[in-house]
């Protein structure tokens, strides 16, 4: 158990992969646009986790800097995304993601 007692980067990367996969599945199966956004946040967090893990592995602060930017962009993305959701749902209160299909070819 000595080897297992050491938390290696691989553990973190596997956790990140699992988190990303769950988030990805969520985007694909959920219909509520708000929940789809939350799932996207899960995927972003998975990536952040792997970035920090790599930062620690390679002993390089740039990985953490990138996470900082991801956080900022995620915040902007959520703000705009929720603005769009509000604008849409105000007109059609019961809409889910499948009801908004005006771009059908």
């Amino acid at each position, binding site marked *: 158990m000595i080897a297992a007692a050491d938390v290696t980067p691989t553990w973190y990367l596997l956790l990140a992969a699992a988190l990303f996969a769950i988030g990805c599945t969520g*985007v*694909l*199966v959920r219909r509520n646009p708000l929940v789809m956004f939350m799932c996207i946040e899960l995927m972003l967090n998975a990536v952040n986790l792997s970035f920090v893990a790599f930062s620690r592995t390679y002993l390089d602060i740039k990985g953490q800097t990138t996470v900082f930017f991801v956080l900022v962009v995620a915040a902007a993305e959520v703000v705009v995304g929720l603005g769009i959701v509000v604008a849409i749902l105000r007109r059609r209160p019961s809409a889910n993601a499948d009801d908004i299909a005006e*771009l*059908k070819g």
Partner: protein
Amino acid sequence: MLNVIWLIPLLPLCGFVINVVLGRRLGDPKSGLLAAAMCGAAFIVTLVTYFDLVSRPEEARQHVATIFSWIPVGGLSVDAAFLADPLSITMALFITGIGTLIHLYAVGYMHGDPKFSKFFVYLNLFAFSMLMLVLGENMLVTFLGWEGVGTCSYLLISFWHTRESAATAGKKAFVTNRVGDWGFMIAMFLAFQAVGSLSYSALNSAAMGGTLVRSTATAITMMLFLGACGKSAQLPLYIWLPDAMEGPTPVSALIHAATMVTAGVYLMVRVNPVIATAFTWAPAVIAIVGAATALFAATVAVAQTDIKKVLAYSTVSQLGFMFLAVGSGAYVAAIFHMVTHAFFKALLFLGSGSVIHGMHHEQDMRRMGALRKLMPITAGTFIIGWLAIAGVPPFAGFWSKDEILLAAWAHPTNPALFKVLWGVGLFTALLTAFYMTRQVIMVFFGKARWEDHSGDHGAHGDFKPHESPAIMLLPLVALSGLSIVGGVLNLPFTDSTKRLLHWLEPLVHFGEIEGHASAGEKWGLAVGTAALCLASMGVAIFVYQRNRAQAVEPQILADGWRYDRFVSWFMGHPGRQAFEATAWVDRNIVDGAVNGVATGVRRSGAVLRRTQSGFVRNYALLIGGGVVLMLAWFLLRAVGVFG
């Protein structure tokens, strides 16, 4: 100061931008005064540049100010550059100077017009384009200005576009000019092909150095001349200019008399070494076209009844004189006449505008008469303009016209042809004196015929012509002063009084053809011409003032030799068939290919559109699937490498 010549076109451009943005708010008359101030500032900068240029030694009087590299593509490198040399600065001086006066005049003339500020937007844009044209260091910058003035001309001719005739006249001017522009473009292509550059200095030095092939030089000359014919209203492309009188009168004065229409002459003078390199028949063609246009337009002017139409045909005729000078190799005389013509023709147009203004937009000379008492200043200045254009010494027109006739008379290489052209020119000068006298008498002397028609103007119960406001009279007085003394630019008496000749000498000495005429010949020609012109004026007074003889004004002359109708017929019948044939090719072959492509795209689109379900989750699924496939590919590759 030469480094800031870009300021000259920039100032009117600023006026244009300010008036576009704030023009409506500034309103009448502030936006007009702003435009005039910008033009005046450009004049001052030009004046300073001029003095700087004068203070330099002769060989240093040339400066190229490059603003930026405009089109650096492979072998073609065109800079947005301005050229300051005696010729361009001379042009810029009278463009900005007369332009300022006309801007001021327009403030009075356009007063109360609902589109007042828009008028000055166009006018400043015109000044900018015209300055680009003359200051351009290469043909492309000139062409930019060339098209710019064409556009402004179109916009200003059809300024009162609610009037059907004005809209049509604008379109006519635009379309006719395109024919000439085509020539200009071909000339540019040829120049690039021959010397690999579009700059005037490269083209001219190639011509002077003998590296420009003679046939190429001839082709460039003829194509540029075609362009000049369009812009400067020469046969066969003159037809737009008389119709252009539909525009407001300040426009007629600025664009269709003083500046834009002289662009063709400027261009020919600019490339004079190329013309000198061409076969000798090329300048002869230019001279013949010029003389023919001069005579043709003068005969038409004799029978016109519209006050502005007379001046329009007169302008065409005087431009013909300038081309006669160019063809005779007398470039300085051409520029000299251009300048004096700008003075007196702008004066005459502005005077006619003042008359039209005072007559409440009546343009028919048959309804005028005896206006000198009611409009003394307009009448006085108009009479000065009349004496100047008729060639009465010592007014400006006499000197320049005499120079041109002398150049034709003394042409050394082809005396027989040029003697004939001289005869045509002389006869045209006599006709000019005749029809201008006719106009002055019909408008300002004789019986007051407007009283008979006062009833026509229903709204104005007591119709009475009135003198124009001071802001319109000031430019008239200034221009009449210039029309009197304009001749001092280039007096032929001694070498030192030929100021314009010395000034332009370095630019034209390669192309300038020196005629051989003894002093006696010169004096005889000058005195003889002046005497004949006076006699012609006497005949006109005899006919129109004293009514001693029946006026001969055949209808065919009033119709402009029915040339206009011929063009319409030609375009309507044989031309139309050619257009129909072209249209058929376009419809069935060009469109067929295009439609075939479109059909193919539509069919494939119909298949592919099924992937566009519109469901965002569906798209996400496709992206996810793609990610999985790409991951698999990377992984397999990596494992393969490691394994």
